[in-house]
């Protein structure tokens, strides 16, 4: 019968696997791991079918009949289920040993820089392909691996955030009213043609004189974030000297930054907040994340997907994520400009009273 046949098949590779030593080359280990994952998926499907059959047998048994057919069904399904579960346990053990469910392969020395396929908690399998590496070709395959990883991430993104690509219709909140108001006012002045980053930047600086807009490539932004004074430093005179030096270095470096490498936009309102917007892909005008921070915060956690240590900026960041989806939902390519204007409307966050809260 089908079920018995399958379990026999599974036992043989299990035995064979026991004989293989760990001196297998990593590509073979990865191939084995992928195969075992597929086997596990098949066994799980069998278990599901077996469970259905058992339920069916129970249903049949509940009908008044005078045969012992249900009993035979039960015994058969019970045996095959036990076998399936046993097989699954075996495969699971093998996978664990080979480091698929944990990340132990990475700690082994001779792994050629390859990674075992990872099983995520939700069941998705992330497999990294590889190329054979000879000395000197490591760089090329790293690029390929990165490209494959990006593809894997994009697939995950499409799977878990399907609405991002389709555009999201959201209810506008009070702050968005303010920003769209601002947009309408300015739209009447000139035709909105802010498709390039320099245009957007100069327009914004004219509209909102108190904001400081700076653009960075990703690596430069990381350097800047790390050079900002952290919230621990209390003495502004001491802290200002190193920033001054490094920011002037960065400024001269920034002038040579090519427009198509710009991936991070920093909007800074002195003494109020610092907003970070990230662009994806670099050089485009498509924002994909935004976060707010205190002007006194510094460190590598300051980026468009990071969170401030202060509640007020955490809340604003959450609102900003919603606003970003709202602006992207229009699909007209004006999302960045709208988002930046919306961010600037927070200039009065500490001075204007909230008009939509219930008064105590």
């Amino acid at each position, binding site marked *: 019968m089908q079920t018995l046949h399958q379990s026999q098949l599974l036992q043989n590779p299990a035995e064979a696997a026991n004989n293989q030593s760990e001196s297998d080359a990593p590509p073979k280990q990865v191939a084995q791991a992928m195969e075992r994952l597929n086997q596990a998926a098949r066994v799980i499907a069998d278990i599901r079918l077996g469970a259905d059959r058992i339920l069916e047998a129970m249903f049949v048994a509940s009908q008044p009949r005078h045969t012992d057919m249900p009993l035979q069904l039960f015994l058969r399904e019970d045996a095959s289920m036990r076998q399936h579960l046993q097989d699954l346990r075996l495969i699971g053990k093998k996978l664990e040993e080979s480091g698929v469910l944990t990340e132990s392969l990475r700690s082994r020395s001779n792994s050629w820089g390859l990674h075992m396929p990872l099983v995520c908690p939700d069941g998705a399998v992330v497999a990294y392909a590889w190329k054979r590496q000879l000395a000197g070709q490591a760089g090329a395959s790293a690029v390929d691996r990165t490209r494959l990883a990006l593809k894997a991430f994009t697939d995950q993104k499409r799977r878990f955030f399907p609405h991002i690509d389709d555009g999201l219709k959201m209810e506008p909140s009070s702050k968005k009213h303010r920003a769209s108001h601002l947009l309408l006012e300015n739209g009447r002045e000139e035709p909105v043609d802010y498709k390039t980053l320099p245009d957007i930047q100069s327009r914004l600086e004219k509209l909102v004189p108190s904001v400081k807009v700076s653009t960075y490539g990703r690596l430069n932004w990381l350097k800047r974030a790390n050079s900002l004074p952290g919230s621990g430093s209390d*003495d502004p005179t001491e802290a200002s000297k190193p920033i001054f030096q490094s920011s002037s270095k960065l400024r001269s470096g920034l002038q040579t930054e090519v427009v198509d490498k710009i991936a991070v936009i920093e909007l800074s309102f002195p003494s109020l907040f610092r907003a970070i917007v990230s662009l994806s892909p670099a050089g485009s005008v498509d924002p994909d994340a935004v976060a707010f921070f205190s002007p*006194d915060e510094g460190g590598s956690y300051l980026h468009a997907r990071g969170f401030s240590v202060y509640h007020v900026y955490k809340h604003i960041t959450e609102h900003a994520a919603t606003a970003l989806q709202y602006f992207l939902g229009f699909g007209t390519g004006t999302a960045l400009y709208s988002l930046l204007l919306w961010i600037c409307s927070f200039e009065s966050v500490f001075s204007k009273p909230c008009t939509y809260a219930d008064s105590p």
Partner: protein
Amino acid sequence: MLKDQANQLEFPRDFLGISLADQPNKYYFIIRTQRIVLEADSSIQLIMEKLQSYKSKVALYFDGFQYQLGDFRLRVGKVVPTHSENVRGIVMEVEYLPISSMEKAQKVMEEFLEIWNEALAKRSLPGKFVNIDLNFGEFGLGDIYTPQHTAVRYALVMAHMIATVQAVRG
């Protein structure tokens, strides 16, 4: 937190010395009449003891608890002279942590104090919290809040405390 008063012949006869719990390496000198605040290393106290040119007249301790309410940090403590158990008063520090500009945080602080006073009013406690406004500019301090601002504030509080003590005695 300590406060000293000292005597000296030609120049201002007394100054206030303050050490803050969250700045263990620093010691602050304040001469209110001249609007001077100075931040020094805490080892200056040792030097002064060795010089023997200053004597401590009065020392007050501000001792209490620190609380975090969202982005606000509260310190509430009682004021006690060193060799006595009498509580001279209660001091509360309120700090809004996200921003350092006093001007920008003013509205937020005012709202907090409104809520605080409302909550206290329902409890019918004896006494009232009084916020004394201070012109930091006279001390050469700017809008960005620093430990020196804190030291100046405490100097003012101490002066008030001493004045009330003397009024009670005299």
